[in-house]
């Protein structure tokens, strides 16, 4: 396996590939594809964009019948794209060779029995802390058994110690992933197995109130500071040194570490050992367009990106943690300090996490955007928490 597909000379055709990302993702993928082009002769035309504009553009291209051949996908989007018949069922591709990938991650690309994406990298949520601010405030961060209340106390005391213009914890009230984790911390799943919402209005009320209290006490920055940092990592309160801690994905930790003048550490989020809230997540997946004229070459690229030692070396962990044991072993020893920290963190997560009970259903993305808007409106005092909760559940029930 792993050789040319179908004997149709697919290696000669040019493949169009698209992905989202910033500088570190772009340079890593460019290096990997260049290395593969040397090896296999497959030329790859590349289209990249930041996460925000990526989906608008991909949807428009797909609707126009002009989708790239090789597409970086997200677990939250695959059900929508698969339902519209725009992705190739990779289980029908005999040349696909991705056995090396961790077993638990395969589900992120599955819709029923069909495989629409191969995991490109895995990640998990973590708590990122700036060592400079934490040191100045004389704080000690909790280990692997603490709850959200303890986190709030630490955040507030950080603000008390560091002065008016520095806050403890970046505002995470609008982050649906964190809310999902909070519900799992309480011992329940966010979605029921049939895809309806399992979280209750009481859960959301408590969640929004938690962050409102934190903002009031100085533990989290006021609304305008958070709003100013929206969009790109370099603008966030954490990167700017205005917040001592913030939540982020493992690859965000690496990006923050490169942006920041302080050293950063990566910790488990609030964690109840009996009901672990974390899960091993697919950071991104590779899919092939159902309209691709060079599906064999695109599938071969997926094989290479998964298995080729050159590609693994070039990618490092800039997309997230490599999804195969072989790749992680190959990288050990060659990583920078912050990359090694991220990789070690994933090993910890592998031990203290439980998988999601099901994948994100359709509508997850809208809820994600909506929670961000609602938390912002509450923070600016434009919306009461009960009204925000009403809006959220009205929208959520529209999907089911």
């Amino acid at each position: 396996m792993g050789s040319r597909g179908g004997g149709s000379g697919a290696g000669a055709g040019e493949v169009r590939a698209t992905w989202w990302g910033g500088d570190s993702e772009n340079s890593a993928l460019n290096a990997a594809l260049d290395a593969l082009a040397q090896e296999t002769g497959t030329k790859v035309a590349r289209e990249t964009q930041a996460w925000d504009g990526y989906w608008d553009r991909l949807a428009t291209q797909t609707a126009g019948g002009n989708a790239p051949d090789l597409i970086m996908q997200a677990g939250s989007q695959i059900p929508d794209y698969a339902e519209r018949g725009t992705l190739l069922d990779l289980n029908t591709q005999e040349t696909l060779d991705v056995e090396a990938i961790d077993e638990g991650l395969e589900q992120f690309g599955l819709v029923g029995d069909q495989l629409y994406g191969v995991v490109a990298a895995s990640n998990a949520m973590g708590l990122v802390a700036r060592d400079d601010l934490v040191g100045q405030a004389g704080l000690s961060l909790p280990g692997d058994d603490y709850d959200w209340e303890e986190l709030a106390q630490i955040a507030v005391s950080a603000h008390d110690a560091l002065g008016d213009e520095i806050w403890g914890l970046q505002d995470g009230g609008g982050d649906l992933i964190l809310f999902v984790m909070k519900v799992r911390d309480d011992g329940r799943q966010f979605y029921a197995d049939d895809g309806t919402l399992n979280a209750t209005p009481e859960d959301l009320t408590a969640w929004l109130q938690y962050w409102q209290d934190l903002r009031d006490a100085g533990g989290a920055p006021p609304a305008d500071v958070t709003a100013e940092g929206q969009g790109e990592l370099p603008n966030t309160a954490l990167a700017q040194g205005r917040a001592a801690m913030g939540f982020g994905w493992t690859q965000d930790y690496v990006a923050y570490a490169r942006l920041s003048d302080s050293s950063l550490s990566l910790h488990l989020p609030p964690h109840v050992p009996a009901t672990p809230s974390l899960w091993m997540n697919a950071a991104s997946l590779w899919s092939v367009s159902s309209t691709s004229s060079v599906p064999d070459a695109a599938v071969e690229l997926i094989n290479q990106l998964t298995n080729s030692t050159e590609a693994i070396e070039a990618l490092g962990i800039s997309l997230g943690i490599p999804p195969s044991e072989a790749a992680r072993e190959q990288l050990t020893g060659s990583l920078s300090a912050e990359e090694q920290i991220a990789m070690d963190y994933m090993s910890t997560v592998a031990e203290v996490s439980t998988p999601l009970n099901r994948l994100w259903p359709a509508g997850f993305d809208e809820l994600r955007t909506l929670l961000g808007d609602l938390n912002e409106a509450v923070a600016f005092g434009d919306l009461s928490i009960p009204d925000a909760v009403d809006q959220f559940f009205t929208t959520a029930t529209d999907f089911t």
Partner: protein
Amino acid sequence: MNATTHEAGARGPGAAGSHPPGRASAERTRGAGRRRWSPRRRSATFAGYLFLLPWFLGLFGLVLGPMLASAYLSFTEYDLFTDAQWVGLSNYTEIIGSDPEFRQSVGVTFTYVLASVPLRLLFALALAVVLNRTLRGMAFYRSVMYLPSLLGGSVGVAVLWRQLFGRDGAVNEFLGLFGIDGPNWIADPDYSLMTIIVLAVWQFGSPMIIFLAGLRNIPPEMGEAALVDGAGPLRRFLSITIPLLTPIIFFNVVMQTIVAFQAFTPSFIISNGTGGPVGSTLFYTLYLYQKAFTEFEMGYASALAWILVAIIAAVTAVAFLSSRRWVFYADEGR
């Protein structure tokens, strides 16, 4: 000259313009006598249309065609992927009857138009008056004043704007010198639209150039005559310059209003396409874009587009009706 050259040269396919230029004038006289010879006329007309063809292709393929398509789509539910379903007027009734974001975006857009257009034109006129002199290096100053208009829509400005109007930005540092604790101009919903209006006013370049041309067209004799009668500079400006400039002012008002209604980039780049914070910079076109390309409600977005066309048409019509009362055309002899 060109037309006759082609006419005379159009003896056969490919012959047009292929003869040496020196013969053109001789052929023109002969050509003039043959005007009534219709086969040549017809082939000349044909050649004319042939030259227009690229423009027609653009007009029908890129403008009228898509407009007709969007008119049709505005009566459908269309998600880009599956076939459009006819839904009659329901998009329009939903937008006008029960869409809070539509109302929000209309409010934001009208505020923007009503504030930015007069301010931009005042700036443009004031600078045009200042630049309408003969001074050394004046061409340089004029170019410099035009520069912001070239930069205004670029992504770099979003970065600049953060540096200027952010919480710790240059503006607040300056205010701090006087003991004023300025707000977060960009990220506070009470002020964020204001910074976008400032950005718009700053791009006064093209109306300024048009004003400058208008000022140059005012015959100096009138001002001199008024001077002899003892009118001061302000009096001359208000009683001579402004009335003679009203056609130009009218033109600028109409053009700038239409452009302002369609403003998209400033809000898109400064709010990262969200229209935030809390919808305070949700311009009409940005809302339309979100509906079309983020939520894939292309039918709904098409209806929004046609409502915008209606709004602009109505506002322009009001401007034209009012113009009879205040626009003065010198050659009307009023």
